[in-house]
């Protein structure tokens, strides 16, 4: 046991040392998301509002190329009705083709289409945004350390730069961004969107809603994963108990027992 204690003392001191070292960086705000925890689920209304914020604010620069419009109506997501999904998709112009004459053509979007990207490619996106490519947001929450908390924190973390910090043209100061410099301007302001469900569109509300939406986009399987997981683990625990009892019975023939 002594050795174990020594173990943990050393590991613990290493961990503490590590936390001290990175104390200069501001940790993201911890939000009590509804989708955290073993039984976490998305807030349906928040997902729908989040889609609205994404569509009206973020989508002008950020693509979400791995999502399809049909995903918006699937269980575990924003769960828009079939008609709503069709209407959302039809609001986009999709390039299709080539047709029988070999020409590309545009048509109204269908639920099976992928989300239409704002720029034709990464280079065009970077060129239009001062050289910084606005990252695709399909898996953004999984691609950042700190996940949803980090995304939310950056959205509400814009500040005037502290004295002594000079920023180049087109660069903004953000408390939570790594290196504190971000090329995305603060796009959220109170009342920027008009929520269909009447919720007041404060900056905090919009940041939370769009982060919820992005979390779902990154992990659309989250709800069914949690549900299946609980069942699987319950099953395994029950089976373990049965197997344990069988094992005891079988080994009772041997002396000494295990």
């Amino acid at each position, binding site marked *: 046991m002594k050795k174990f204690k020594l173990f943990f003392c050393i590991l613990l001191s290493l961990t503490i040392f590590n936390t001290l070292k990175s104390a200069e960086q501001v940790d993201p705000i911890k939000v009590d998301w509804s989708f955290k925890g073993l039984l976490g689920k998305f807030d349906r209304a928040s997902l729908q509002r989040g889609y609205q914020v994404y569509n009206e604010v973020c989508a002008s620069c950020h693509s979400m190329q791995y999502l399809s419009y049909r995903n918006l109506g699937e269980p575990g997501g924003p769960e828009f009705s079939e008609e709503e999904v069709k209407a959302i998709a039809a609001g986009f112009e999709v390039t299709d083709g080539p047709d029988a004459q070999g020409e590309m053509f545009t048509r109204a979007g269908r639920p099976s289409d992928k989300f239409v990207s704002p720029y034709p490619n990464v280079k065009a996106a970077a060129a239009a945004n001062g050289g910084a490519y606005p990252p695709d947001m399909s898996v953004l929450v999984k*691609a950042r350390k700190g996940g949803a908390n980090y995304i939310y924190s950056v959205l509400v973390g814009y500040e005037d730069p502290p004295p002594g910090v000079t920023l180049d043209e087109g660069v903004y100061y953000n408390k939570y961004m790594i290196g504190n410099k971000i090329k995305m301007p603060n796009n959220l302001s109170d009342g920027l969107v008009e929520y269909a469900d009447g919720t007041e569109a404060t900056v905090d509300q919009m940041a939370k809603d769009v982060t919820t939406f992005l979390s779902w986009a990154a992990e659309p399987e989250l709800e069914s994963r949690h549900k299946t997981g609980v069942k699987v*683990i319950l099953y395994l625990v029950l*089976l373990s108990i049965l197997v344990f009892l069988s*094992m005891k019975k079988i080994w009772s023939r*041997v002396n000494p027992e295990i």
Partner: protein
Amino acid sequence: MSEHEYVPKSKAGKWFNDRLPLLSLASHLTDYPTPKNLNYWWTFGGILTFCLLTQIITGIVLAMHYVAHADLAFASVEHIMRDVNYGWLIRYIHSNGASMFFLAVYIHIFRSLFYGSYKSPREIIWIIGLMIYLLMMAAAFMGYVLPWGQMSFWGATVITNLFSAIPLVGDSITTWLWGAYSVDNPTLTRFFSLHYLIPFLILGLVVLHIWALHIPGNNNPVGIDIKKPSKDTVPFHPYITIKDAFALLLFSIIFAGFVFFAPNVLGHSDNYIQANPMVTPAHIVPEWYLLPFYAILRSVPDKLGGVILMFGAIFILFVLPWLDTSKVRSAVFRPIYRQFFWILVLDVLVLGYVGAMPAEGIYLVLARVGTVYYFLHFIVILPVVGYLEKTEPVPLSISEPVLSGSANYSMAKKDNEKI
């Protein structure tokens, strides 16, 4: 191979068995006399077989949907996660399965180190096991490259660049490995091909590993040779199968915990960013199970020296049966070795920890101390302790206490429970 002649009861069975003795083999496997005092650390062989089969089965399904192309790989993984039925489950089992595989193999290896399972007459089992471990690392490394995320790309760049440290031909070898002048599409496609091949090589070695095991039979916590079959042994089935099944279920609960509730906690968030040769991540780190070796690699200021030490850290294990001079197998009866065993465990954990940290300041110092100690353990401590140590009296059999008093077996048992 068989201690007894098996004759099938049915006529058809006998006809078949005379031509291909599969039934004899099955009979050997079920009756295989196993020491009755095996503790739960011995259940990891079965668990590892389960891990290998899980990786092969999920991998075959993933390969049906995955596209090995630099422009399409990342998108095809997202396709698996979103559009393939239960694709997320299959992929998360496969990616977390690699971690669980290594967790189990490390326990398996350290169990062997504690109970002296690598010693005569089991050297070949040990060496085949190490070959399996080497192939596992190769398979895991190449598998991590396939999603073509940032860590995939840069991890592949760092590891393949190690070969450029070889004098004279290093650069040519690296280019040959890449199939290009940098990590690129040809690298990805060959890694995919090899990643599919290696598990079947492992499977073949597993058969040899078990075959070699069945010649001398299992070692056991007391570490003594036993008569087989005798009252010290039980038939493999149902005694060991049920115990392995129980341990496997407990292991599966932890496995499922990761898959369903923390599927990305063992991975790096940067690997959800598509590979970009123009942007280097702030810290390039391998998966957790390779971190101790990464720490050894970076602890040496010279590239070639680092590579030699890193590979040396594994290859030194191949000669371990001849470095350990003690006649007593089990650490239960080796009071001094037992202490050094735990220091080695701690040393490897510390190396793993500093492997995840930037190679500077205190971390670099720790990595160097850890590396020196690692080699010291095998080259100096093991041979010397074997000569000088006064071992405790070893019992004559599992059932019977030692001649000089009955205290030791119960002590051994107590000790087993403790660890």
